[in-house]
């Protein structure tokens, strides 16, 4: 008899420990309601701690606890806890992202020189409706929608919620649209393709009343696009006195400067890393 009573106490203690047991599903989907089974009896406090939520409410142990989808919108680790008068029991579970339906599209740079090989980086982060990274997703469809030309598109796989592609800019300057699509999401960014560095810089000179007027031919890049106004062309004059360099911005497609030259002189021009022809004037 003296050994039976402690045994019964142990059994009762074990029973009361079980009283706080709860059994959530091992996995759930973001935004979907779940029901958590509990055992035991009497009043208890239910807690649910998630990535962005903390729930605390009074429940009846032994009944099922309904958790609304609104409280399970964040994908990640949740801990369900049930505390009765005899202690607490807990059970963790994972909430997985819902179906992919949103995109965060990053396109860099926003201005790119023409014919720039792999010069445009396009990265799409794939999310579900609740901003969870969708780690399992069908491919993302990337599209290039140039003005006055046929659109081009290609699928790229999503790994760990990310799909990406590198693009070469067109040979003709102007805007182009770059898009990405998945589910109901369709994002578009605009990239401005601008003329690249000047190419085949050529200058010519004409006498004027004070010396020479030195002028470039229309300055274009290697694809034939006019280099934007404001791009600097450096004119260098070497004569018996020494060397003089003058920076001149392009206006209406050409750069020009009046140079007071006495005697013989050599004139050259450069823009960026490109040098043009050399003239010998005077005499």
């Amino acid at each position, binding site marked *: 008899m003296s050994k039976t009573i402690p045994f019964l106490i142990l059994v009762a203690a074990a029973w009361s420990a079980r009283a706080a047991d709860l059994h959530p599903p091992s996995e759930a989907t973001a935004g979907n309601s779940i029901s958590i089974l509990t055992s035991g009896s009497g009043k208890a406090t239910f807690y649910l*701690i998630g990535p962005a939520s903390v729930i*605390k409410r009074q429940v009846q142990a032994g009944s099922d606890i309904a958790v609304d989808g609104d409280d399970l919108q964040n994908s990640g680790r949740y801990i369900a806890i049930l505390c009765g008068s005899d202690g607490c029991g807990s059970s963790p579970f994972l909430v997985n992202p819902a179906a992919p339906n949103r995109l965060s599209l990053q396109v860099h740079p926003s201005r790119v020189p023409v014919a720039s090989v792999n010069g445009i980086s396009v990265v799409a982060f794939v999310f579900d409706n609740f901003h969870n990274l969708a780690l399992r997703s069908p491919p993302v469809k990337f599209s290039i929608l140039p003005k006055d030309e046929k659109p081009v598109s290609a699928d790229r796989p999503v790994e760990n919620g990310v799909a990406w592609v590198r693009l070469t800019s067109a040979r003709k300057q102007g805007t182009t649209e770059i898009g990405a699509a998945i589910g109901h999401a369709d994002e578009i960014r605009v990239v401005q393709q601008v003329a690249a560095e000047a190419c085949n810089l050529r200058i010519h000179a004409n006498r004027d009343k004070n010396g020479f007027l030195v002028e470039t031919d229309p300055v274009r890049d290697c694809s034939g696009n006019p280099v934007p106004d404001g791009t600097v062309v450096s004119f260098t004059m070497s004569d018996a006195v020494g060397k003089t360099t003058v920076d001149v911005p392009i206006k209406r497609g050409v750069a020009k400067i009046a140079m007071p030259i006495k005697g013989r002189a050599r004139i050259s021009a450069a823009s960026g890393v490109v040098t043009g022809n050399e003239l010998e004037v005077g005499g």
Partner: protein
Amino acid sequence: MSAASRYSVLALAFAGLLCAVAVLYLRVSASNEVPRVEFSADNIGPRPVEDLTRQHIPRDYALAWQTMEQALEENRPDLLDAYFTGFAKEDLTKRVNRQIGAGMHVRYQDRGHKLEGIFYAPAGDAMELRDRAQVDLQIYDGGKVIYDEPIDTQYIVLMTPGADRWLVRKLQAVGGEKP
């Protein structure tokens, strides 16, 4: 009992008290220590990681965890401003505010992170990482501990560069031994 025995018992009791105080102190000060982060970028792509970025990522990620642990322990959402942005900051701020509403807080004992770079955007403006985090987690309702377990969780992390540091933009648990 002899005087020597009495002194021995007293000394033992005092030593035990010191140990208890030390254990309590270590727990309390856990959030003040920067967690240990082992960073590997051996399999990252498509952009190779620059030397400076290789140093900054584990440093800033460790500081992000430190501030997160402190914010969740002290219920101070303002601490999240330093190393979190975007959805990560929104979610954690919501969680701290709900903790405040429920009269709860949590305490982490951080046992370290194995952080692996898995994607570095070609333009260098985003990095995705996988973290295996090992922490001891205590959940408090008021002053009462309602949960106390070691947990081992895997996270997918999205970090983006800020003015002088990398910020955590997304921190999403994806599994683990005890998810």
